């Protein structure tokens, strides 16, 4: 029972602050609600016993990513200009299609029997989850791990190149 209450509270926090991110006119406030939404999600990760990922979520998302967003918002000093046309025909069309797909998907999830699992049906891990995580990271998923490392290097070089001022050729 207590778990159900916690689940409802955390998912409500995540969803409501996600809505506030979308509707907020001020980008700084939107970034703040983004932190709240990420914290709600991290709590849900804890409820799913993914403790390591919950910590990573708070450190990387609520820490690094949102701080980067706030830094750029301050740097550019952007103000939301009153938009003339929020709903263009393309927006309405894609919104209708996206909404229809979402409603269909939710209906399917609701009626699905294979998804209707409770914890008792779950196959439990009989080893330490974090140990298993690290073990798989360096055995089964070694290649993705290496590729991710290279991706980070490439991203770093890319950011340096993008923000560097180039002298004109022959000037």
């Amino acid at each position, binding site marked *: 029972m207590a778990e159900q209450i916690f689940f409802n509270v955390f998912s409500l926090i995540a969803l409501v602050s996600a809505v506030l991110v979308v509707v907020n006119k001020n980008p700084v406030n939107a970034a703040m609600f983004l932190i709240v939404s990420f914290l709600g999600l991290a709590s*849900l990760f804890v409820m*799913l016993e993914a403790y390591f990922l919950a910590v990573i979520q708070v450190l990387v998302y609520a820490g690094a990513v949102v701080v980067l*967003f706030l830094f*750029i918002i301050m740097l550019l000093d*952007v103000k939301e200009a009153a938009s003339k046309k929020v709903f263009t025909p393309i927006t309405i069309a894609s*919104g209708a299609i996206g909404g229809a797909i979402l409603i269909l998907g939710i209906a399917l999830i609701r009626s699905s029997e294979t998804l209707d699992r409770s914890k008792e049906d779950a196959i439990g891990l009989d080893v330490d989850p974090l140990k298993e995580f690290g073990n*798989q990271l360096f055995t089964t998923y070694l290649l993705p791990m290496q590729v991710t490392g290279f991706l980070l290097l490439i991203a770093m070089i890319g*950011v340096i190149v993008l923000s560097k001022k180039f002298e004109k050729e022959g000037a």
Partner: protein
Amino acid sequence: MEISLQSYIMVSSLLFGIGFFGVLIRKNTLVVYMCLELMLNACNLGLIAFSKYHGAMGGNLFVFFIITVAAAEVAVGLAIIVALFKKRQTVQLEELNALQK
């Protein structure tokens, strides 16, 4: 535990929907970017829920990679936005319509 897998997938899909509509209706590039992050996080929640109820570690590892890629993506994307702002002095999507003309 009474919470079924369905509930988690439901929260995940709703969060994805919110992010999707945010991308559609917002005109500020930075907020559009935040909504993209919301969508990525919704996928993460789904993957972790599936991983938990299946009793396998694969989903958790994928979430780990997604978080890493998202962090790299944010760094590059924001650098592009700053470069764009230097050139055009705006981050409003409706004013960035050079390809439409």
